[in-house]
């Protein structure tokens, strides 16, 4: 595997959960130093989450949407120049998660806001020269159920509206030269095998995002999954975990923090139980040439995670 091309996701910075010193993450100076440290740890490509929340309330120091980028750098082009000067030559992809908009019992609000900001994210991906927009096709199953207790009865209608939203995005993505990929998350309404009917209903241009930890949590064999789906894989996230969901945690409102048994679900790459060297070898054997991204979301120490990830990739090169 050509590890030089592997990107690191900026989701390794904790933007949302309490921890000492996280206030730093909202200021521009933190990010501009981070880019140089990412480059120093051997990465020249990044993936960026697209988070509309930072454009509300005048907190534009987190560079995770168009508003923030334009506020701090005037344009995506000037921001890319800053990244480049820091040693980040490429933004491989943008990710988008609609959980922010599942906050009441109004599905029109959810689909309206998600559609609007997903389109923003897609246009931003094009501006940043990204290969793909990786979208979570639903919020947490349990969060939908929190506000829509009749979710099971509404699932067909929810799925149909999701398809319509994604069809619109797919057409725009094709026009922009960006690949739309669907994230496969264990907690999703469309997690595991539940994603395939959705994917089948969409144009062939829409691809699959393989996330190794998410598959592990769901008890799905990454080997079998990748072998079966290799033709429509649009990107691969090398993520790690020790957690297998045997208690239907995926159906709870906050599934990345299991309610009755606290644990860090997503571990720094190389420190969990996912056989990442085997998966990398499998991708090579299948001649997979698409984007590969390492993600250390939920890390307790982003700088340690960068070096742990580099240590893992060094192992893959041997």
């Amino acid at each position, binding site marked *: 595997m050509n590890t030089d091309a592997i990107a690191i996701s900026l989701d390794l910075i904790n933007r*949302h*959960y*309490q*921890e*000492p*010193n*996280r*206030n*730093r993450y*909202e*200021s*521009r*100076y*933190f990010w501009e130093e981070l880019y140089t440290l990412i480059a120093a740890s051997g990465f020249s490509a990044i993936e960026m989450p697209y988070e509309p929340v930072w454009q509300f*309330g*005048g*907190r*534009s*120091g987190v560079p995770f949407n168009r508003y923030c980028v334009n*506020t*701090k750098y005037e344009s995506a082009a000037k921001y890319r120049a800053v990244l480049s000067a820091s040693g980040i030559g490429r933004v491989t992809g943008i990710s988008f998660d609609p959980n*922010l908009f*599942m*906050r009441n019992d109004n599905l029109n609000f959810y689909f309206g806001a998600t559609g609007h900001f997903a389109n923003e994210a897609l246009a931003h991906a094009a501006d940043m020269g990204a290969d793909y927009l990786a979208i979570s096709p639903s919020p947490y199953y*349990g*969060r939908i159920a*929190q506000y829509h207790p009749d979710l099971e009865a509404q699932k067909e209608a929810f799925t149909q509206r999701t398809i319509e939203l994604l069809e619109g995005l797919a057409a725009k993505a094709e026009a922009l030269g960006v690949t739309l990929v669907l994230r496969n998350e264990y907690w999703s309404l469309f997690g595991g095998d539940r994603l395939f009917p959705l994917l089948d209903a969409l144009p062939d241009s829409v691809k699959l995002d393989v996330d190794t930890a998410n598959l592990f949590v769901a008890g799905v064999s990454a080997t079998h999954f990748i072998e079966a789906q290799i033709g429509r894989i649009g990107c691969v996230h090398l993520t790690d975990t020790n957690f297998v969901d045997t208690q239907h945690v995926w159906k709870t*409102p*906050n599934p*990345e*923090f299991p*309610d*009755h*048994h*606290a*644990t*860090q679900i997503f571990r720094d790459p190389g420190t969990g139980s996912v056989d990442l060297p085997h998966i990398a070898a499998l991708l090579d054997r299948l001649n997979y040439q698409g984007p590969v991204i390492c993600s250390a979301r939920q890390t*307790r*120490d982003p700088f340690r995670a960068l070096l742990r990830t580099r240590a893992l990739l060094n192992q893959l090169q041997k």
Partner: protein
Amino acid sequence: MPNIRYANMAHWKTIPYRKIDNFREFYYEDNSNSAYYSDWDNILKYQSALGFDGIELAPWDLADLLPLFGSPENFTQFAKERGVTVIGMFHGAHASHDQGHFDEAVRSGREAVDTIVKFGGTYMNTCPTQNYFGTGPLSRDEVQQCAKVMNEIGRYATDHGVKLGLHNEFFCAINLQNHRELIESTDPNLVHYCIDTAQIAIMGEDLLTFYNDYHERISTFHLKDTASAKQPDSVRYAQDPEITDDGRRWFWEPGQGELDLKGLYHALRQHGFKGWMSIEYDGSPDLLASMAMTRYYLDNELRPIYD
């Protein structure tokens, strides 16, 4: 019963767990302090242990908080079992200066009151409209429109046992030139005022003069310090000034800045203030340390003046 009871404004970022039952095991996953900041059980116990018997909620936390507890009432009971009362919630009255937004601004304000009532709270500290940048300067009519919205929400709040307190921020479209005009345009029976000590000082008000002028309107405080009073228009009217690019802080724990907080406490004694006071730690890298630092300052410097 003391005249002043102390609360914390909830500036905790998202707390992912309600209660961690496997604390030792969770700690040993990485031997870091993550476990110490991950559940409401401990966060509320920290508050209670440090003598902060109230919590003022932030509306942006509700989307994560409510799924954890199932309902506002459940959170209130959980907090009460740990010695903490929900005193109220902050509210942003977006675009209340805009006549075309009247119905939406009032509807949103009423919904916030309803939410506070469910939590058992009695304070709704309300930012009257959005940032100056992109909105200001407001015309006289727009200030009056703001006042109209505040009166309307204030009437509903009063009818439901909640005190609406205007809460101004140094970068808002309601700013130094129309701050007092707004206050004086609202009905004192329906609209009160929450003094954010640092925000109004940065905006350019003199803290003691302002309190003495408006002490009859003051429902509560957001108590925090600053070393950056009287900022120029170029700072206050800039785009997104609250979080600085270089990490410089506007706000400090009481006693760490330059405000005359002892003078304020003498004025509180003079006017016989009674009620809740929320401490705010926005900008702090360590909210637990800030809480302890504040408790020491309160007990040793401020409460001896007026309790």
